[in-house]
């Protein structure tokens, strides 16, 4: 026997799900604004140093970003498939799809680590640690400051997201959720889709301009 997922201060499971979903969306909105602050900083310095930003963007390898975009988009898809199974009450399959998504997340981080070590070797570092000889223009080190801030914060979100997916996936596989109540699966998915959504904007701004 498992305990009912309904907390005592809610009338019924429907209202609880609605409140949970609403709370998650409020949190996601605050996450969007957290990243917006960094994107605003990017907009300012891109405006002030557009040539240096264009050259610095060309100095980093585009294929890393392209492959990582494909990995993240696909992981978002597998998370959606996991929810699809949870809706039907197939907890085991949800766990399986979430495990696939976590594997994609690890692949994403591994590729990011390779990319970071490449930047370290080239001296493409923020602030006064910048020592990339091929590009010595005002604003070039600012591009890499923002690069590390944005991709670093996104990376932290990837780590948090894959942890949530792993926990919820294991619970789903153990049959904690039913077709009638699977809101945690949905909320974990929402968080992961937001991580994907943010990367969709990071990719063109960092790699393609």
């Amino acid at each position, binding site marked *: 026997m498992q305990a009912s997922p309904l907390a005592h201060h809610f009338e019924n499971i*429907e*209202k609880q*799900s*609605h409140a949970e*979903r*609403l709370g998650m*969306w*409020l949190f*996601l*909105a*605050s996450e*969007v*604004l957290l990243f*917006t*602050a960094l*994107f*605003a900083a990017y*907009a*300012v310095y891109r*405006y*002030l*140093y*557009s040539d240096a930003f264009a050259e610095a963007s060309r100095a980093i390898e*585009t294929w890393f970003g*392209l492959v990582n*975009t*494909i990995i993240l*988009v*696909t992981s*978002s*898809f597998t*998370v*959606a*498939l996991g929810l*699809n199974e949870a*809706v*039907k009450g197939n907890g085991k399959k949800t766990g399986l799809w979430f495990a696939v998504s976590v594997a994609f997340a690890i692949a994403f981080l591994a590729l990011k680590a390779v990319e970071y070590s490449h930047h370290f070797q080239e001296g493409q570092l923020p602030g006064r640690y910048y020592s990339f000889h091929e590009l010595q*223009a*005002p*604003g070039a080190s600012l591009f890499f400051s923002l690069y590390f801030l944005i991709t670093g914060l996104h990376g932290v979100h990837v780590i948090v997201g894959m942890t949530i997916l792993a926990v919820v996936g294991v619970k789903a596989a153990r049959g904690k959720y039913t*077709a009638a109540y699977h809101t945690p699966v*949905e909320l974990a*998915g*929402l968080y992961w*889709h*937001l991580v*994907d*959504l943010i990367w*969709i*904007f990071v*990719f*063109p*701004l960092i*790699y*393609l*301009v």
Partner: protein
Amino acid sequence: MADPRPIAHEEHLATHHAHGMRYVVVWIALLVLTVVTYAASRVHLPGGWHVAVALLIAIAKGALVALFFMHLWDQRGANRLIFVTSLAFVALLIGLTILDNATRFPLANPPGSAGALPWGGADRDPPKLPQ
């Protein structure tokens, strides 16, 4: 409201349908758009259009994720409102910051940047102030 059914019930119904095929279509669309945005960055476009095209494609991809993977398409009421409100604040934050930077006078911009005085321009002796 046109629909007399309560919001919670509506959401409950909407999120208890399986969307397998829809997810596949969205996934393929996202992959195609990713390749398109990469290809668009490789071709020659007149100045400024690269960013516009890249951002338009990113907005299209983001809309697909938010509407179908995040189920905003199926949901009503508050969740949509929160998301749209956060987008309004995104527009305000970035839009006003860019407006500020675009309308500064040269001395307010750091040397070497667009809109700053030419090199050496700020190094000239400042005009003597009347005693």
